[in-house]
């Protein structure tokens, strides 16, 4: 089991942290930036952020841990990503909204 953290300051004192718990995919356990460079395709229409993250979990084998009040998991979004790094999916859909 690997614990990898990905953090970003989104306000002056707030730091959003997403923790990846790598459980099922041993392929992705080398280095921290490799996790975010993992490429995947995702096409979802009108789904909650929570469900976007669940889809990513199923595809990559990473579980996400986060402060629920910072992520807004109920917010509805659509994702159209074709073979993009995980970093892009998180940046455009979850962190920068």
């Amino acid at each position, binding site marked *: *089991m690997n*614990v990898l953290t990905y953090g970003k300051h989104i306000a002056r004192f707030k*730091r959003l*942290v997403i*923790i990846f718990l790598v459980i099922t995919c041993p392929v992705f356990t080398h280095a921290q930036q490799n996790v975010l460079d993992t490429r995947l395709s995702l096409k979802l229409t009108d789904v909650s952020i929570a469900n976007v993250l669940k889809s990513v979990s199923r595809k990559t084998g990473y579980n996400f*841990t*986060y402060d*629920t*009040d910072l992520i807004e998991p109920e917010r509805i979004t659509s994702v159209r990503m074709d073979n993009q790094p995980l970093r892009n999916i998180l940046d455009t859909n979850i962190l920068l909204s």
Partner: protein
Amino acid sequence: MKKEEKNNENMKGKERMMFDEFLSGQNRSIQKYWKDMDDIGRSTKVDVDKAWDKLYNRLEEDKLLRKNGVLFNPVFRIAASLILIFGLTFTGLYIGTNIFEKSNTNTVTAGIEQKNVEVTLPDGSKVFLNRNSKIEYPEKFSRQIRSVKLQGEAFFDIESNTGRPFVVDAGTANITVLGTSFNVNTGHNRVEVFVTSGKVMLSSNSGNQSITLEQGDVGAILDNYASKTANTDPNYLSWKTEILRFEGDSLGKVLHDLKRVHNINIETRSEEINNLRFTSVFDNQSPDTIIRIICTTFNLEYYKEGNIYFLDKK
């Protein structure tokens, strides 16, 4: 040797002399009494055979005895003896087996540091004991019922056998099933059952409260009162599965589940911390790792004193 013999003879002679003197002397009344006693002894010598004959003769005269009755039929006598012998043998065996079954009770106890102790029952059913729990079961189940006794918490995966119900004696309540899987938690006079498959009957010890539970139901008996709700806690069986799921749960709930599953103490330094909302899935992570992840997520710090984790703002 010779000297001693002589002495003995002398003593005997002396004694006899003294005894005769005693009888013939002033104690004539005693001598008479003695003689009378001897006479009584002789005259009361009873001839039993003669007495029986006399009784039979009298019974015959009074036509009270039926000599040709069924009781005197030799075939009947043999048959009666055989029935008696077989009867006693089977009764003996039956009582014997019951005592045998009762005296051979197996007890499995899970200590404070053990959990998920797996027990295989005589019928192939599986029981998983949580820590601080105890199960008693017979070496061999009886033909009518499969009966066990539980203290603490356990998960049951029971082999189906509709002809032989499975009963858990949980102190203040009984749980009866035919073949299902369910969790039983006892303590503080409360018995709680969570059904994961099939049907379960939960009844109070007095028998006047009884409810049927189905998959997903949580039933409880408290102070002889039965209640039923649908389970909404994804971590009900986490003590067994070691998988913890949180979806926007307050840290208060998260810490409560962690305490229950990992037997650790967690204290928070402010009520604010308990209200933070947390989302995560943990699968077999150590308590240290989980606490570390929580602290990283919320920018908290922790320190450990003995078995207690203290969580505080940075």
